Protein backbone atom coordinates (compact mmCIF):
# COMPACT_ATOMS: atom_id res chain seq x y z
CA UNK A 1 0.00 0.00 0.00
CA UNK A 2 2.82 2.44 0.88
CA UNK A 3 6.41 2.31 -0.30
CA UNK A 4 8.92 4.81 0.95
CA UNK A 5 12.40 4.53 -0.41
CA UNK A 6 15.55 6.44 0.51
CA UNK A 7 13.73 9.61 1.55
CA UNK A 8 16.01 12.57 2.19
CA UNK A 9 15.08 16.09 3.22
CA UNK A 10 17.30 19.00 4.18
CA UNK A 11 16.21 22.33 5.64
CA UNK A 12 18.98 24.86 5.07
CA UNK A 13 21.86 23.13 6.83
CA UNK A 14 19.79 20.67 8.85
CA UNK A 15 19.44 17.18 7.44
CA UNK A 16 16.01 16.20 8.74
CA UNK A 17 15.76 12.87 6.89
CA UNK A 18 18.85 10.90 5.98
CA UNK A 19 17.50 8.19 3.70
CA UNK A 20 14.38 6.67 5.20
CA UNK A 21 12.86 3.53 3.69
CA UNK A 22 9.90 1.42 4.74
CA UNK A 23 6.98 -0.50 3.27
CA UNK A 24 3.52 -0.74 4.71
CA UNK A 25 1.05 -3.43 3.70
CA UNK A 26 -2.67 -2.82 3.30
CA UNK A 27 -4.49 -2.94 6.64
CA UNK A 28 -1.38 -2.43 8.73
CA UNK A 29 -1.12 0.05 11.54
CA UNK A 30 2.45 1.25 11.34
CA UNK A 31 3.84 3.28 14.22
CA UNK A 32 6.56 5.79 13.63
CA UNK A 33 8.11 6.18 17.04
CA UNK A 34 10.73 8.73 17.92
CA UNK A 35 11.56 11.72 20.08
CA UNK A 36 10.79 15.32 19.13
CA UNK A 37 12.84 16.39 16.13
CA UNK A 38 13.51 12.82 14.99
CA UNK A 39 11.89 13.37 11.56
CA UNK A 40 8.40 11.92 12.10
CA UNK A 41 6.47 15.01 11.03
CA UNK A 42 8.81 15.66 8.10
CA UNK A 43 8.16 12.10 6.87
CA UNK A 44 4.39 12.53 7.23
CA UNK A 45 4.54 15.98 5.61
CA UNK A 46 6.31 14.56 2.56
CA UNK A 47 3.86 11.67 2.35
CA UNK A 48 0.92 14.08 2.53
CA UNK A 49 2.41 16.20 -0.30
CA UNK A 50 3.10 19.19 1.95
CA UNK A 51 6.85 18.98 1.44
CA UNK A 52 8.96 17.88 -1.46
CA UNK A 53 11.83 15.55 -0.65
CA UNK A 54 15.34 16.30 -1.86
CA UNK A 55 15.71 12.66 -2.79
CA UNK A 56 13.75 9.44 -2.60
CA UNK A 57 10.48 8.01 -3.78
CA UNK A 58 7.07 7.55 -2.20
CA UNK A 59 4.17 5.61 -3.63
CA UNK A 60 0.73 5.41 -2.07
CA UNK A 61 -1.95 2.97 -3.21
CA UNK A 62 0.08 2.31 -6.35
CA UNK A 63 0.46 5.99 -7.29
CA UNK A 64 3.80 7.72 -7.41
CA UNK A 65 3.59 10.77 -5.15
CA UNK A 66 5.63 12.97 -7.50
CA UNK A 67 3.83 11.99 -10.69
CA UNK A 68 0.31 11.62 -9.30
CA UNK A 69 -0.04 13.81 -6.20
CA UNK A 70 -3.76 14.30 -6.77
CA UNK A 71 -4.52 10.57 -6.82
CA UNK A 72 -2.39 10.13 -3.71
CA UNK A 73 -4.27 12.93 -1.95
CA UNK A 74 -7.61 11.28 -2.77
CA UNK A 75 -6.41 8.11 -1.09
CA UNK A 76 -5.15 9.66 2.13
CA UNK A 77 -6.67 11.27 5.16
CA UNK A 78 -4.39 13.44 7.26
CA UNK A 79 -4.80 14.12 10.96
CA UNK A 80 -2.44 17.01 11.54
CA UNK A 81 -0.77 17.78 14.86
CA UNK A 82 -2.58 21.12 14.95
CA UNK A 83 -6.32 21.20 15.57
CA UNK A 84 -7.27 22.59 12.19
CA UNK A 85 -10.88 23.59 12.71
CA UNK A 86 -12.85 26.80 12.32
CA UNK A 87 -13.78 27.77 15.87
CA UNK A 88 -16.64 30.01 14.80
CA UNK A 89 -18.36 27.22 12.86
CA UNK A 90 -20.25 24.30 14.37
CA UNK A 91 -18.78 20.80 14.34
CA UNK A 92 -21.31 19.88 11.64
CA UNK A 93 -20.39 22.87 9.45
CA UNK A 94 -16.69 22.14 9.88
CA UNK A 95 -17.16 18.54 8.81
CA UNK A 96 -19.39 19.57 5.94
CA UNK A 97 -16.69 21.95 4.73
CA UNK A 98 -13.81 19.48 4.98
CA UNK A 99 -15.90 16.68 3.44
CA UNK A 100 -16.92 19.00 0.62
CA UNK A 101 -13.28 19.54 -0.31
CA UNK A 102 -13.04 15.82 -1.07
CA UNK A 103 -16.16 16.01 -3.25
CA UNK A 104 -18.15 13.58 -1.10
CA UNK A 105 -21.73 13.63 -2.52
CA UNK A 106 -24.06 15.77 -0.41
CA UNK A 107 -26.39 13.06 0.90
CA UNK A 108 -23.55 10.64 1.50
CA UNK A 109 -21.64 13.35 3.34
CA UNK A 110 -24.59 14.11 5.60
CA UNK A 111 -24.88 10.46 6.60
CA UNK A 112 -21.13 10.14 7.02
CA UNK A 113 -20.97 13.22 9.29
CA UNK A 114 -23.69 11.82 11.55
CA UNK A 115 -21.97 8.44 11.60
CA UNK A 116 -18.61 9.94 12.57
CA UNK A 117 -20.08 12.31 15.15
CA UNK A 118 -21.80 9.31 16.69
CA UNK A 119 -18.57 7.30 16.62
CA UNK A 120 -16.72 10.10 18.40
CA UNK A 121 -19.54 10.66 20.90
CA UNK A 122 -20.35 14.18 19.75
CA UNK A 123 -23.61 13.75 17.85
CA UNK A 124 -25.63 15.65 20.42
CA UNK A 125 -23.34 18.66 20.20
CA UNK A 126 -23.07 18.75 16.43
CA UNK A 127 -24.62 22.21 16.12
CA UNK A 128 -22.48 23.82 18.83
CA UNK A 129 -19.66 26.08 17.74
CA UNK A 130 -16.29 24.35 17.95
CA UNK A 131 -14.99 27.16 20.19
CA UNK A 132 -17.25 25.83 22.97
CA UNK A 133 -15.60 22.38 22.83
CA UNK A 134 -12.86 21.08 25.12
CA UNK A 135 -9.40 20.33 23.70
CA UNK A 136 -10.16 16.61 23.59
CA UNK A 137 -13.45 17.12 21.79
CA UNK A 138 -11.75 19.33 19.23
CA UNK A 139 -9.13 16.63 18.66
CA UNK A 140 -11.90 14.10 18.05
CA UNK A 141 -13.54 16.37 15.44
CA UNK A 142 -10.10 16.95 13.93
CA UNK A 143 -9.75 13.20 13.42
CA UNK A 144 -13.31 12.86 12.13
CA UNK A 145 -12.59 15.52 9.50
CA UNK A 146 -9.88 13.28 8.02
CA UNK A 147 -12.21 10.29 7.73
CA UNK A 148 -15.13 11.84 5.83
CA UNK A 149 -14.02 10.62 2.40
CA UNK A 150 -13.23 7.14 3.75
CA UNK A 151 -9.54 7.21 2.82
CA UNK A 152 -7.56 4.02 2.17
CA UNK A 153 -4.67 5.38 4.20
CA UNK A 154 -4.81 7.49 7.34
CA UNK A 155 -1.84 9.54 8.54
CA UNK A 156 -2.09 10.44 12.21
CA UNK A 157 0.58 12.82 13.40
CA UNK A 158 0.66 12.71 17.21
CA UNK A 159 -3.13 12.83 17.48
CA UNK A 160 -3.33 12.60 21.26
CA UNK A 161 -1.04 15.46 22.26
CA UNK A 162 -2.40 17.38 25.23
CA UNK A 163 -5.76 15.72 25.72
CA UNK A 164 -7.73 14.23 28.60
CA UNK A 165 -7.65 10.45 29.28
CA UNK A 166 -11.29 10.02 28.24
CA UNK A 167 -10.72 11.49 24.79
CA UNK A 168 -7.45 9.61 24.47
CA UNK A 169 -9.18 6.29 25.13
CA UNK A 170 -11.95 7.12 22.69
CA UNK A 171 -9.37 7.94 20.02
CA UNK A 172 -7.58 4.64 20.72
CA UNK A 173 -10.85 2.75 20.35
CA UNK A 174 -11.58 4.49 17.04
CA UNK A 175 -8.08 3.77 15.72
CA UNK A 176 -8.46 0.12 16.74
CA UNK A 177 -11.85 -0.04 15.03
CA UNK A 178 -10.51 1.51 11.82
CA UNK A 179 -7.57 -0.87 11.87
CA UNK A 180 -9.91 -3.82 12.35
CA UNK A 181 -11.98 -2.63 9.38
CA UNK A 182 -8.85 -2.79 7.21
CA UNK A 183 -7.73 0.82 7.02
CA UNK A 184 -3.98 1.34 6.60
CA UNK A 185 -2.76 3.67 9.32
CA UNK A 186 0.51 5.45 9.93
CA UNK A 187 0.63 6.67 13.49
CA UNK A 188 3.43 8.90 14.71
CA UNK A 189 3.95 9.30 18.41
CA UNK A 190 6.54 9.66 21.11
CA UNK A 191 4.35 7.78 23.57
CA UNK A 192 5.58 4.19 23.50
CA UNK A 193 2.43 2.87 25.19
CA UNK A 194 0.36 4.19 22.27
CA UNK A 195 2.57 2.48 19.72
CA UNK A 196 2.55 -0.75 21.77
CA UNK A 197 -1.23 -0.74 22.02
CA UNK A 198 -2.19 0.34 18.51
CA UNK A 199 0.50 -0.62 16.03
CA UNK A 200 1.21 -4.05 14.66
CA UNK A 201 4.52 -2.84 13.23
CA UNK A 202 6.78 -0.12 14.52
CA UNK A 203 9.58 1.89 12.97
CA UNK A 204 11.92 3.55 15.41
CA UNK A 205 13.17 6.82 13.99
CA UNK A 206 15.97 8.92 15.41
CA UNK A 207 17.97 11.75 13.97
CA UNK A 208 16.47 11.28 10.50
CA UNK A 209 17.03 7.56 10.13
CA UNK A 210 15.00 4.46 10.94
CA UNK A 211 17.19 2.61 13.42
CA UNK A 212 14.96 -0.46 13.68
CA UNK A 213 11.59 -1.70 12.51
CA UNK A 214 9.36 -4.71 12.91
CA UNK A 215 6.66 -6.06 15.18
CA UNK A 216 7.08 -5.45 18.88
CA UNK A 217 8.19 -9.09 19.36
CA UNK A 218 10.66 -8.80 16.48
CA UNK A 219 12.13 -5.65 17.99
CA UNK A 220 12.42 -7.33 21.38
CA UNK A 221 14.32 -10.31 20.02
CA UNK A 222 16.28 -8.66 17.23
CA UNK A 223 19.04 -7.00 19.25
CA UNK A 224 21.10 -8.04 22.23
CA UNK A 225 18.33 -6.84 24.53
CA UNK A 226 17.67 -9.00 27.58
CA UNK A 227 15.02 -8.95 30.24
CA UNK A 228 16.11 -8.58 33.85
CA UNK A 229 15.10 -10.20 37.13
CA UNK A 230 16.17 -8.12 40.08
CA UNK A 231 16.24 -10.15 43.32
CA UNK A 232 17.02 -8.73 46.74
CA UNK A 233 18.21 -11.09 49.48
CA UNK A 234 18.42 -10.92 53.27
CA UNK A 235 21.52 -13.11 53.56
CA UNK A 236 23.67 -12.56 50.46
CA UNK A 237 27.26 -13.46 51.33
CA UNK A 238 30.36 -13.63 49.11
CA UNK A 239 30.34 -17.46 49.33
CA UNK A 240 26.70 -17.73 48.24
CA UNK A 241 27.23 -15.21 45.46
CA UNK A 242 30.19 -17.24 44.14
CA UNK A 243 28.05 -20.38 44.12
CA UNK A 244 25.33 -18.59 42.15
CA UNK A 245 27.93 -17.11 39.80
CA UNK A 246 29.24 -20.52 38.92
CA UNK A 247 25.83 -21.55 37.57
CA UNK A 248 24.59 -18.24 36.12
CA UNK A 249 27.06 -16.23 34.09
CA UNK A 250 24.95 -13.29 32.99
CA UNK A 251 24.36 -11.31 36.17
CA UNK A 252 25.54 -8.32 38.16
CA UNK A 253 25.65 -7.76 41.93
CA UNK A 254 24.69 -4.53 43.69
CA UNK A 255 25.07 -4.89 47.51
CA UNK A 256 22.25 -7.25 48.57
CA UNK A 257 20.73 -7.40 45.12
CA UNK A 258 21.57 -9.43 42.03
CA UNK A 259 20.42 -8.55 38.51
CA UNK A 260 19.96 -11.71 36.41
CA UNK A 261 19.79 -11.13 32.65
CA UNK A 262 17.97 -13.46 30.26
CA UNK A 263 16.47 -13.51 26.79
CA UNK A 264 13.70 -15.77 28.06
CA UNK A 265 12.87 -14.62 31.54
CA UNK A 266 9.64 -16.63 31.77
CA UNK A 267 11.53 -19.87 31.19
CA UNK A 268 14.51 -18.96 33.34
CA UNK A 269 12.78 -17.42 36.37
CA UNK A 270 11.97 -20.73 38.07
CA UNK A 271 15.54 -21.96 37.46
CA UNK A 272 16.98 -18.82 39.09
CA UNK A 273 14.71 -19.11 42.13
CA UNK A 274 15.48 -22.83 42.47
CA UNK A 275 19.22 -22.09 42.36
CA UNK A 276 18.85 -19.38 45.02
CA UNK A 277 17.05 -21.86 47.29
CA UNK A 278 19.77 -24.45 46.69
CA UNK A 279 22.52 -22.11 47.92
CA UNK A 280 20.38 -21.07 50.90
CA UNK A 281 19.54 -17.52 49.85
CA UNK A 282 16.42 -15.96 51.41
CA UNK A 283 14.57 -13.85 48.85
CA UNK A 284 13.26 -10.50 50.06
CA UNK A 285 11.94 -9.02 46.81
CA UNK A 286 11.67 -9.93 43.11
CA UNK A 287 11.29 -7.38 40.33
CA UNK A 288 10.93 -8.42 36.68
CA UNK A 289 12.00 -5.78 34.17
CA UNK A 290 10.61 -6.70 30.75
CA UNK A 291 11.79 -5.27 27.45
CA UNK A 292 9.64 -2.30 26.45
CA UNK A 293 9.80 0.03 23.52
CA UNK A 294 11.37 2.54 25.87
CA UNK A 295 14.22 0.16 26.71
CA UNK A 296 14.59 -0.85 23.08
CA UNK A 297 14.72 2.79 22.08
CA UNK A 298 17.22 3.54 24.81
CA UNK A 299 19.47 0.68 23.77
CA UNK A 300 19.29 1.63 20.08
CA UNK A 301 19.78 5.36 20.38
CA UNK A 302 21.10 6.01 23.85
CA UNK A 303 18.22 8.49 24.33
CA UNK A 304 14.91 8.53 26.13
CA UNK A 305 11.76 8.92 23.99
CA UNK A 306 10.63 11.91 25.99
CA UNK A 307 12.65 14.45 27.89
CA UNK A 308 12.72 13.46 31.53
Amino acid sequence: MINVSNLRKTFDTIEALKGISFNIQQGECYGLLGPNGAGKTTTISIMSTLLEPNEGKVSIAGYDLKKNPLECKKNIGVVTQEIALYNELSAYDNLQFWGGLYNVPKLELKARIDELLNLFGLLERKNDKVKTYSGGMKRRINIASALLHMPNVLFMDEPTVGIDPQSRNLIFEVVEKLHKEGMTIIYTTHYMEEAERLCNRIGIIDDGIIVAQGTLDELKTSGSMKETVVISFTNLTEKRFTKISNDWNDHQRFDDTIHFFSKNIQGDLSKIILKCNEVGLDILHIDIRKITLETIFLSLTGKHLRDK
Partner: protein
Amino acid sequence: MIKLVKKDLKLFFGNKQDMLLTFALPIIFITLFTFVFGKMGNTDEDNLGGVVHVVAGTSVMMLLFSVAGIGGSLLDEKQEGMLKKLLCSPMHPKHILYGKLVYANIISVVQLIVMFVYAWLVFGLDIMHYLPSIVLMILAISYACSGFGIVLASFAKSSKQVQGYSTIVVLVMSAIGGSMIPIFIMPEIMQKIAVVSVNYWGIQGFYDIFLNLLPITDITFLSKVFVLIGIGTSLNFIALQMFKKNILKIV
Protein backbone atom coordinates in the same frame (compact mmCIF):
# COMPACT_ATOMS: atom_id res chain seq x y z
CA MET B 1 -13.03 27.08 -4.59
CA ILE B 2 -16.74 27.87 -4.23
CA LYS B 3 -16.72 25.83 -1.02
CA LEU B 4 -13.92 28.01 0.35
CA VAL B 5 -15.82 31.19 -0.52
CA LYS B 6 -19.02 29.84 1.05
CA LYS B 7 -17.12 28.93 4.22
CA ASP B 8 -15.52 32.40 4.43
CA LEU B 9 -18.88 34.12 3.90
CA LYS B 10 -20.44 31.93 6.59
CA LEU B 11 -17.64 32.88 8.97
CA PHE B 12 -17.96 36.56 8.07
CA PHE B 13 -21.72 36.83 8.50
CA GLY B 14 -21.51 34.83 11.75
CA ASN B 15 -18.97 37.22 13.25
CA LYS B 16 -20.49 40.36 14.76
CA GLN B 17 -17.12 42.07 15.14
CA ASP B 18 -16.31 41.68 11.43
CA MET B 19 -19.76 42.99 10.52
CA LEU B 20 -19.33 46.02 12.76
CA LEU B 21 -15.91 46.86 11.35
CA THR B 22 -17.02 46.36 7.76
CA PHE B 23 -20.36 48.13 7.85
CA ALA B 24 -21.02 50.05 11.06
CA LEU B 25 -17.65 51.81 11.37
CA PRO B 26 -17.61 53.22 7.81
CA ILE B 27 -21.22 54.33 8.25
CA ILE B 28 -20.28 56.18 11.45
CA PHE B 29 -17.36 57.89 9.68
CA ILE B 30 -19.46 58.77 6.63
CA THR B 31 -22.18 60.22 8.87
CA LEU B 32 -19.74 62.31 10.91
CA PHE B 33 -17.74 63.58 7.93
CA THR B 34 -20.83 64.32 5.87
CA PHE B 35 -22.29 66.43 8.66
CA VAL B 36 -18.99 68.32 8.86
CA PHE B 37 -17.98 68.59 5.19
CA GLY B 38 -21.27 68.06 3.39
CA LYS B 39 -22.75 71.41 4.40
CA MET B 40 -19.68 73.61 4.03
CA GLY B 41 -20.26 74.69 0.44
CA ASN B 42 -22.02 77.85 -0.70
CA THR B 43 -24.06 76.09 -3.35
CA ASP B 44 -25.97 72.80 -3.61
CA GLU B 45 -23.36 71.66 -6.11
CA ASP B 46 -20.55 72.32 -3.60
CA ASN B 47 -22.46 70.42 -0.92
CA LEU B 48 -23.06 67.51 -3.29
CA GLY B 49 -19.33 67.51 -4.01
CA GLY B 50 -18.68 67.30 -0.25
CA VAL B 51 -21.06 64.36 0.18
CA VAL B 52 -19.65 62.49 -2.84
CA HIS B 53 -16.11 63.06 -1.62
CA VAL B 54 -16.87 61.83 1.89
CA VAL B 55 -18.83 58.75 0.75
CA ALA B 56 -16.36 57.73 -1.98
CA GLY B 57 -13.20 58.60 -0.04
CA THR B 58 -14.28 56.98 3.22
CA SER B 59 -15.71 53.89 1.49
CA VAL B 60 -12.51 53.16 -0.44
CA MET B 61 -10.35 53.76 2.64
CA MET B 62 -12.46 51.45 4.82
CA LEU B 63 -12.59 48.91 2.00
CA LEU B 64 -8.78 48.74 2.01
CA PHE B 65 -8.86 48.01 5.75
CA SER B 66 -11.41 45.24 5.16
CA VAL B 67 -9.39 43.50 2.45
CA ALA B 68 -6.23 43.83 4.56
CA GLY B 69 -8.12 41.89 7.25
CA ILE B 70 -8.91 39.18 4.71
CA GLY B 71 -5.19 38.87 3.93
CA GLY B 72 -4.53 38.63 7.65
CA SER B 73 -7.09 35.83 7.98
CA LEU B 74 -5.03 33.80 5.52
CA LEU B 75 -2.07 34.02 7.90
CA ASP B 76 -4.32 33.04 10.81
CA GLU B 77 -5.35 29.97 8.82
CA LYS B 78 -1.70 29.19 8.20
CA GLN B 79 -0.80 29.59 11.87
CA GLU B 80 -3.71 27.44 13.05
CA GLY B 81 -2.90 24.61 10.64
CA MET B 82 -5.90 25.07 8.35
CA LEU B 83 -3.74 25.92 5.36
CA LYS B 84 -1.75 22.73 5.88
CA LYS B 85 -4.95 20.71 5.95
CA LEU B 86 -6.29 22.49 2.87
CA LEU B 87 -3.07 21.68 1.03
CA CYS B 88 -3.50 18.00 1.91
CA SER B 89 -6.90 17.96 0.21
CA PRO B 90 -7.25 17.23 -3.51
CA MET B 91 -7.56 20.90 -4.36
CA HIS B 92 -5.06 22.92 -6.35
CA PRO B 93 -3.15 25.25 -3.98
CA LYS B 94 -3.90 28.21 -6.26
CA HIS B 95 -7.60 27.73 -5.57
CA ILE B 96 -7.01 28.69 -1.94
CA LEU B 97 -5.82 32.09 -3.14
CA TYR B 98 -8.53 32.43 -5.77
CA GLY B 99 -11.10 31.62 -3.09
CA LYS B 100 -9.77 34.44 -0.91
CA LEU B 101 -9.76 36.86 -3.86
CA VAL B 102 -13.34 36.03 -4.81
CA TYR B 103 -14.37 36.37 -1.16
CA ALA B 104 -12.57 39.74 -0.92
CA ASN B 105 -14.40 40.87 -4.08
CA ILE B 106 -17.78 39.86 -2.69
CA ILE B 107 -17.21 41.60 0.65
CA SER B 108 -15.90 44.71 -1.13
CA VAL B 109 -18.89 44.91 -3.44
CA VAL B 110 -21.34 44.42 -0.55
CA GLN B 111 -19.51 46.99 1.59
CA LEU B 112 -19.54 49.64 -1.16
CA ILE B 113 -23.18 48.96 -2.02
CA VAL B 114 -24.15 49.36 1.65
CA MET B 115 -22.25 52.67 1.86
CA PHE B 116 -23.91 54.13 -1.24
CA VAL B 117 -27.36 52.88 -0.30
CA TYR B 118 -26.84 54.49 3.13
CA ALA B 119 -25.78 57.77 1.48
CA TRP B 120 -28.87 57.60 -0.73
CA LEU B 121 -31.26 56.95 2.17
CA VAL B 122 -29.73 59.38 4.68
CA PHE B 123 -28.10 62.12 2.61
CA GLY B 124 -30.22 61.89 -0.52
CA LEU B 125 -27.31 61.01 -2.84
CA ASP B 126 -29.02 60.21 -6.13
CA ILE B 127 -27.63 56.76 -6.89
CA MET B 128 -30.66 55.50 -8.84
CA HIS B 129 -30.06 57.94 -11.68
CA TYR B 130 -26.50 56.68 -12.27
CA LEU B 131 -26.96 53.07 -11.23
CA PRO B 132 -25.09 51.31 -14.12
CA SER B 133 -22.06 53.62 -13.77
CA ILE B 134 -22.03 53.21 -9.98
CA VAL B 135 -22.24 49.41 -10.27
CA LEU B 136 -19.37 49.39 -12.79
CA MET B 137 -17.24 51.64 -10.58
CA ILE B 138 -18.01 49.52 -7.48
CA LEU B 139 -16.97 46.35 -9.34
CA ALA B 140 -13.78 48.01 -10.62
CA ILE B 141 -12.78 49.34 -7.18
CA SER B 142 -13.53 45.98 -5.53
CA TYR B 143 -11.41 44.17 -8.09
CA ALA B 144 -8.60 46.72 -7.71
CA CYS B 145 -8.53 46.27 -3.93
CA SER B 146 -9.08 42.49 -3.72
CA GLY B 147 -5.41 41.47 -3.98
CA PHE B 148 -4.20 44.19 -1.60
CA GLY B 149 -4.67 42.11 1.56
CA ILE B 150 -2.89 39.06 0.14
CA VAL B 151 0.06 41.18 -0.99
CA LEU B 152 0.31 42.71 2.50
CA ALA B 153 -0.01 39.26 4.10
CA SER B 154 2.84 37.89 2.03
CA PHE B 155 5.20 40.40 3.63
CA ALA B 156 4.01 39.65 7.15
CA LYS B 157 4.39 36.76 9.56
CA SER B 158 1.10 37.14 11.44
CA SER B 159 -2.28 38.79 11.10
CA LYS B 160 -1.27 41.29 13.78
CA GLN B 161 1.66 42.34 11.62
CA VAL B 162 -0.75 42.73 8.69
CA GLN B 163 -2.87 44.99 10.87
CA GLY B 164 0.16 47.12 11.63
CA TYR B 165 1.27 47.32 8.01
CA SER B 166 -2.24 48.00 6.77
CA THR B 167 -2.75 50.92 9.16
CA ILE B 168 0.35 52.64 7.78
CA VAL B 169 -0.15 51.75 4.10
CA VAL B 170 -3.89 52.47 4.00
CA LEU B 171 -3.59 55.79 5.82
CA VAL B 172 -0.72 56.91 3.58
CA MET B 173 -2.57 55.76 0.43
CA SER B 174 -5.76 57.44 1.60
CA ALA B 175 -3.97 60.67 2.48
CA ILE B 176 -2.18 60.97 -0.84
CA GLY B 177 -5.12 59.55 -2.81
CA GLY B 178 -7.61 62.13 -1.60
CA SER B 179 -9.72 60.10 0.82
CA MET B 180 -9.09 62.59 3.61
CA ILE B 181 -8.53 65.90 1.83
CA PRO B 182 -9.82 66.52 -1.71
CA ILE B 183 -7.07 66.33 -4.31
CA PHE B 184 -7.92 69.67 -5.93
CA ILE B 185 -6.89 71.63 -2.82
CA MET B 186 -3.55 69.80 -2.59
CA PRO B 187 -0.29 71.17 -4.08
CA GLU B 188 0.41 70.23 -7.69
CA ILE B 189 3.17 67.76 -6.78
CA MET B 190 0.76 65.89 -4.46
CA GLN B 191 -1.82 65.77 -7.23
CA LYS B 192 0.77 64.04 -9.42
CA ILE B 193 1.76 61.58 -6.70
CA ALA B 194 -1.90 60.79 -6.02
CA VAL B 195 -2.18 58.67 -9.18
CA VAL B 196 -0.27 55.82 -7.50
CA SER B 197 -3.17 55.37 -5.09
CA VAL B 198 -6.24 53.25 -5.74
CA ASN B 199 -8.22 55.79 -3.68
CA TYR B 200 -7.51 58.48 -6.26
CA TRP B 201 -8.95 56.52 -9.18
CA GLY B 202 -11.98 55.44 -7.20
CA ILE B 203 -12.79 58.94 -5.97
CA GLN B 204 -12.21 60.48 -9.41
CA GLY B 205 -14.49 57.85 -10.90
CA PHE B 206 -17.30 58.82 -8.55
CA TYR B 207 -16.64 62.50 -9.26
CA ASP B 208 -17.13 61.67 -12.96
CA ILE B 209 -20.45 60.03 -12.17
CA PHE B 210 -21.97 62.49 -9.71
CA LEU B 211 -20.25 65.81 -10.40
CA ASN B 212 -19.07 65.71 -14.02
CA LEU B 213 -22.22 63.77 -15.00
CA LEU B 214 -20.31 61.62 -17.48
CA PRO B 215 -22.25 58.74 -19.03
CA ILE B 216 -21.06 55.14 -18.62
CA THR B 217 -19.79 55.16 -22.21
CA ASP B 218 -17.60 58.22 -21.75
CA ILE B 219 -13.94 57.44 -22.31
CA THR B 220 -12.78 59.68 -19.44
CA PHE B 221 -14.92 57.69 -17.03
CA LEU B 222 -14.03 54.35 -18.62
CA SER B 223 -10.32 55.14 -18.49
CA LYS B 224 -10.60 55.25 -14.70
CA VAL B 225 -12.34 51.89 -14.75
CA PHE B 226 -9.54 50.47 -16.90
CA VAL B 227 -6.85 51.87 -14.62
CA LEU B 228 -8.59 50.24 -11.63
CA ILE B 229 -8.81 46.93 -13.51
CA GLY B 230 -5.12 47.31 -14.34
CA ILE B 231 -4.25 47.94 -10.68
CA GLY B 232 -6.36 44.93 -9.65
CA THR B 233 -4.75 42.65 -12.22
CA SER B 234 -1.24 43.74 -11.20
CA LEU B 235 -1.99 43.32 -7.48
CA ASN B 236 -3.58 39.91 -8.06
CA PHE B 237 -0.60 38.80 -10.11
CA ILE B 238 1.80 39.93 -7.37
CA ALA B 239 -0.49 38.27 -4.80
CA LEU B 240 -0.29 34.96 -6.70
CA GLN B 241 3.50 35.08 -6.92
CA MET B 242 3.92 36.08 -3.27
CA PHE B 243 1.35 33.49 -2.17
CA LYS B 244 3.34 30.73 -3.85
CA LYS B 245 6.65 32.07 -2.59
CA ASN B 246 5.85 33.05 0.98
CA ILE B 247 2.46 31.96 2.23
CA LEU B 248 2.51 28.41 0.86
CA LYS B 249 5.85 27.82 2.56
CA ILE B 250 4.62 25.55 5.31
CA VAL B 251 7.86 24.72 7.10
